[in-house]
């Protein structure tokens, strides 16, 4: 009797025994992760069109080094290989998308490796990382190569011509030269808004198009991977605070500009919703979103950097375990009989 037949015979008598439930939903981690990648794709493709080949190269380098780094780490540590589940791909892609398109590719590669190995795998892998790996990679590059990290692509402004070339992001201009200079650079306020909405402006390579990031974000909300309250709350917090604390006194700010500028859209829809590093209950997530929005505004308006999405999210990641501790759901029947 061959081995197969023996197996068959025992299988006829004995069935698999395990604890209930015996049926499961079809959803898997990998499926969720690839859906997030898909949601990022419109903004990523736009970046290639808008910033050209350097953007493509940086995104490819980011993804390849993140996936490869995770694969080699897991291989070396004799762990099950999960490098291809889509999560390392998100990390690499988000990292590249949150940095300048003219950043040298080797820096992107180093950022990716730091993200997946230091921020993710050394903490125990997906699920155990306290901080968003892409943000750790970005922050590490920021302190290592501050000049390269804040050098943006040269771009003609609305008036055209070589003399008008600028290499600043809208938030840079606001920080260095003020709101009027910002309007002047784009021609008029409506031109400013339109360019920010479509994405034809300077900035990190994947953060420019409000429209396409919104599209991806709405897809994730529709699919149920993102609680809509989180991005909405973070964006609303930024809008409210930037409106109140305007340049010419209370209630003189331009919330529309602040909402679409910088990395807020990318951060609110794709990073403040990273399930691993945010609170698990909706109550906790709202606290997280308000905190991240408020810190972003604090850094933008008062801090030394023009943009604060990355650091504000990292700070809120750090307090996530604390938030989770204090935002447990109410247990059924707690507090005695209720009618």
């Amino acid at each position, binding site marked *: 009797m061959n081995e197969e037949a023996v197996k068959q015979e025992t299988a006829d008598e004995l069935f698999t025994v395990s604890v209930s439930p015996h*049926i499961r939903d079809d959803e898997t*981690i990998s*499926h969720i992760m690839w859906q997030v990648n898909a949601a990022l794709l419109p903004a990523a493709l736009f970046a290639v069109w808008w910033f050209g080949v350097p953007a493509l190269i940086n995104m490819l380098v980011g993804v390849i080094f993140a996936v490869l780094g995770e694969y080699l780490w897991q291989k070396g540590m004799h762990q099950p290989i999960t490098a291809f589940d889509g999560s390392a791909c998100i990390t690499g892609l988000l990292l590249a998308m949150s940095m300048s398109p003219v950043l040298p590719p080797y820096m992107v590669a180093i950022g990716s490796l730091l993200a997946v190995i230091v921020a993710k795998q050394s903490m125990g892998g997906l699920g155990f990382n306290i901080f968003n790996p892409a943000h750790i990679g970005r922050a590490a590059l920021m302190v290592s190569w501050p000049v390269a990290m804040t050098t943006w692509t040269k771009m003609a402004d609305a008036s055209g011509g070589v003399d008008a070339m600028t290499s600043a992001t809208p938030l840079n201009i606001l920080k260095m030269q003020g709101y009027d200079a910002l309007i002047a650079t784009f021609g008029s306020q409506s031109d400013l808004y339109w360019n920010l909405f479509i994405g034809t402006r300077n900035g990190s390579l994947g953060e420019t198009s409000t429209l396409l990031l919104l599209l991806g974000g709405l897809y994730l909300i529709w699919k149920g991977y993102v609680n809509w309250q989180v991005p909405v709350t973070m964006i609303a917090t930024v809008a409210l605070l930037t409106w109140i604390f305007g340049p010419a006194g209370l209630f003189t700010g331009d919330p529309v500009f602040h909402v679409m500028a910088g990395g807020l859209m990318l951060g609110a829809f794709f990073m403040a919703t990273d399930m691993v590093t945010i609170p698990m209950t909706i109550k906790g997530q709202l606290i997280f979103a308000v905190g991240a929005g408020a810190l972003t505004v604090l850094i933008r308006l008062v801090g030394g950097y023009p943009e604060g999405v990355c650091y504000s999210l990292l700070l809120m990641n750090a307090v996530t375990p604390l938030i989770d501790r204090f935002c447990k759901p109410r247990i059924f*029947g707690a507090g005695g009989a*209720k009618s």
Partner: protein
Amino acid sequence: MFESFLGGIHPKDGKELAKDKPIEDMPVPQELVVPMGQHIGAPCTPTVKAGDEVKRGQLIGTSPAFMHADIHAPVSGKVVKIEQRPHSGMGSCMAVVIQNDGKDEWADGLPLTRNWQVMENEEILAAIQSAGIVGMGGATFPAHIKLKPSKPVDILILNGAECEPYLTADYRLMLEHGEKIITGTQILQKLLGVKRTVIGIEDNKPEAIKAMEQAANGTNIEVAALKTKYPQGAEKMLIKVISGREVPMGGLPMDVGAVVQNVGTVAAIADAVEHGLPLTERITTVTGDAIKEPKNLRIRIGTPYQAAIDYCGGFKQQPKKLIAGGPMMGMAQATAEVPVMKGSSGILALTAEKVDHGPEMNCIRCGKCVKACPMGLVPSMLSILSERQAFEACRDEYGLMNCVECGCCTFVCPAKRNIVQYIKNAKGVIRAEQMKAKAAAEAKKKAQEAAEAKREAEK
């Protein structure tokens, strides 16, 4: 429409396999294996011995313990053995093995005819107790104890939700024997003196709702169409949805003035009170994608699963799991030798396609389990803490003991974590420690008393 409870899930219900199959009487097999433990509480001790002749309905097992339900012979014949046999809940259990003599004779005086309307409440309770009736939805709590609440109750809820996927036994019972359910319900109304009586049925069973509405016509029994959502039939959820009352943590339904009974239990109570019939048969769904012809069977207690499966044409595919009960809370069986018991609502055979899922991964904190938990727990943290053996933290900080093990968390988990398993493990450890502490305290007390006595004697 009734308000919903928090959480819950919507699994594919698989009920189409058996929902249109009328209840069929399954012929009694040659040998019946009747376990002595078929209820919550102390197992019974056999009152017969090998070689005895028994008749259907004759007492064959009882216990001096308060918490137990008597066990009766499901067929006439000869007791051939009393021995340990496989058991769907305990692994193995002492069982009375009866050789069917083919005559199927009732014990003397059965069935009788009684008018429950003129019976005293004590008589009714005694009839239920001596019929050995337990909760037939699967919980198997002795009915006569539940029906003598120590606190005043004003609402009686009949559980016809049958929220477990695949199972259709209660559904068929409601369609075909609505009048018996109503009779049983009226008996309970008299017994408990409740103000309000509601039968809760999920709205994916419109025919059952219609049938019960017709049967309840002219009575003060309400039929409630409930939202289809698992675990709608969980006792605490059902009470909350129908009455708006919330059973307190660690409490019982009677703490909020409610008693819940499964529709199958109520039908059995009608037979017991009106005709003096002990619980010796029940409706069981034999189904699953591995079963050739899924059926709803009127089946004798003690029928081996294998006999029931054979009666349904056997397996059309090799099943990977054989489950006692439904796929969400049922227990996987190693062998088809286990017998049908009072709480056997279903025999479910599923192929690998239905029960296989990927390997277990780390929790990615997606929060799906938190959203799905009807008890308001954080299952992900319970599973992680239990995995790290931080059992006390599970209990003290995350409400471990409130878990009803409905399985919603595990069903939705994209990391395929066996959350219920971790939780059961933690509960087991906590309970064992409690027992140990109790035993140690008792031993200490005894030692002290002994020392005291010695000192007294020496004086």
